[in-house]
C-alpha cells in the first residue's frame, strides 16, 4: 500500500446540521494534514468500524480545517453524520480533478446545483467570490426538493452581497414559501447567458446534470464549457482498483469533474 493510501487521522472540531439528514463537519488534523485541495476534489473519509466513502470537500481551499457536508444515506455516511466533536475520522486525499473555475476569468460563471450537489460546488463558488473582479456575472441556480432541504441556507445572502445572483427553486413548496417552484432547468431559461463567454459548473443527481447540460446547450453554451461532477463507486481513490470505471475513465483520477463534452457519450450508454 502506498503512503498516499494511508488515512491521516482528523478530529471532528464541529458538527452543524444543514437539514434533517445532512450535516457539515469541520475536521482538524491530528497527524500530518493531507495536501491542500482544489475546489471540486474529494477525499476518502473513514468512519472507523464502519467503512470508507468518497466525500467531496465543501470548504474553501486554505480555510480553517477540512469541511465536509455529508448526507446520511447508508451505514458509513450515517456514522460520519453522527460523529461528535472530538471523535476521530480517517482522511485520504485529496483526489481527482477540480472545477477549474479560474478558466472563466473575464467570463460569466454559472453554478447549477441540485440538492446536496451544492456541497462540491461551494469551494468553487467561494473561490470565484473571493476574486469577484476576475469574473463577470456569477449566477448560482439551486434546485432542491423542499425549502427545508436547502443546504447552506444561511450563506445565500452573503453570496448575494458578494455579487452573486443566487436563485433557489423547489420541487415542492411548503405553505408560506414565496420563492420559485419548479425544476432548476427552468431557472436557466430566465437568466442572461452569454454563450460564448460562460463556464457552467453543474452538480447534482446524474439525471439533473444531464437535463441541465441540455438546457445550457439549448442556450448556446458549448458542451466543452459545461463541467459536471460524476461519481461512481470510488474505493481506492488512486486509480488502482477500477471500481469507479466509466468507459475509458477512472473517475477517482480522471474525475469527478469532467467536461460534458467528454461525459455526454458515456452517460447515454446503458449499463456503463
Amino acid at each position, binding site marked *: 500500500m502506498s503512503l498516499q493510501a494511508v488515512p491521516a487521522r482528523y478530529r471532528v472540531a464541529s458538527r452543524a446540521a444543514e437539514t434533517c*439528514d445532512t450535516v457539515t463537519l469541520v475536521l482538524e488534523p491530528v497527524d500530518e494534514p493531507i495536501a491542500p485541495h482544489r475546489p471540486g476534489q474529494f477525499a476518502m473519509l473513514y468512519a472507523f468500524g464502519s467503512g470508507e*466513502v*468518497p*466525500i*467531496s470537500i465543501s470548504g474553501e481551499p486554505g480555510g480553517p480545517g477540512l469541511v465536509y*457536508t*455529508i*448526507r446520511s*444515506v*447508508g451505514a*458509513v*455516511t450515517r456514522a460520519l453524520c453522527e460523529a461528535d466533536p472530538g471523535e476521530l475520522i480517517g482522511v485520504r486525499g485529496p483526489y481527482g480533478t477540480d472545477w477549474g473555475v479560474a478558466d472563466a476569468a473575464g467570463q460569466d460563471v454559472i453554478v447549477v446545483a*441540485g*440538492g*446536496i*450537489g451544492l*456541497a*462540491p460546488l461551494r469551494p468553487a463558488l467561494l473561490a470565484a467570490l473571493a476574486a469577484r473582479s476576475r469574473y463577470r456575472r456569477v449566477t448560482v441556480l439551486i*434546485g*432542491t*426538493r423542499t425549502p427545508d*432541504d436547502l443546504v447552506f441556507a444561511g450563506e445565500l445572502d452573503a453570496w448575494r452581497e458578494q455579487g452573486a445572483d443566487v436563485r433557489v*427553486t423547489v*420541487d*415542492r*413548496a411548503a*405553505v*408560506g*414559501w*414565496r*420563492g*420559485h*417552484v*419548479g*425544476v432548476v*432547468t*427552468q431557472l436557466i*431559461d*430566465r437568466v442572461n447567458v452569454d454563450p460564448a463567454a460562460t463556464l457552467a459548473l453543474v452538480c*447534482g*443527481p446524474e*439525471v*439533473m446534470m444531464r*437535463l441541465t447540460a441540455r438546457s445550457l446547450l439549448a442556450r448556446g453554451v458549448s458542451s466543452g464549457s459545461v463541467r459536471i461532477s460524476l*461519481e461512481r463507486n470510488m474505493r481506492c481513490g488512486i486509480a488502482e482498483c477500477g471500481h469507479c470505471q466509466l468507459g475509458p475513465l477512472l473517475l477517482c483520477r480522471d474525475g469527478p469533474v469532467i467536461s460534458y463534452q467528454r461525459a455526454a457519450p458515456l452517460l447515454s450508454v446503458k449499463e456503463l
Partner: protein
Amino acid sequence: MNDAVPAPALAEHAFLRGMPADDVARLARAAVAVRLPAGHRLFDEGTPAKKCWLVTSGHVALDLNMPGRANLIIETLGRGDVLGFSWLSPPHQWQFGAEAVESTEAFELDGATVMALCDSHPELGYQLALRFLAAAVRRLQATRIRLLDLYAAPSQSAEAR
C-alpha cells in the same frame, strides 16, 4: 401601467420569437402592457378564464386554494413564460389561481380578441397553436421531472456524497 404594446416589443418576447411580423402586428392590437404590484391576484381557481399574459419581468405564482390554510404554490413563472391556458378550451375556467410574487410586468392578451383574430387569420392561429403546444410540452416535461423526485434520499444500500 396599462399601455398599448408596440409590435417590435411583443416580437421580442420569447413566446412569440420567430413569428411573422404581420401576425405579431395583429396580436399587438389585442395586447396591453401591464405592471402588476407584488401580491396582485390575476385570477382565482374556478373563475372565468378570459386572458393570458406574456411575462416580461418579475414572477407570478400559480397556486392552489387550500381551505383553512394559505394557498400552496405549485409553480412559478417568470420572464419569457406564458401565463394562462384555460381561456383556450372549455370550460374556460381557471384551474389554478395566480398571484404576482413581486412587481411583475407582462403583455396582457384578451382571449376573445385573440380567438377572433385566429378565426379570421388561420395562419396566426397555427403559429399560436404551435407555441402554446410547445409551452404545454415544456410544462409537462418539467412536471414529469419533478415527479421523479430526483433529490430524494437514495436507496439506503447506496452511499453518496
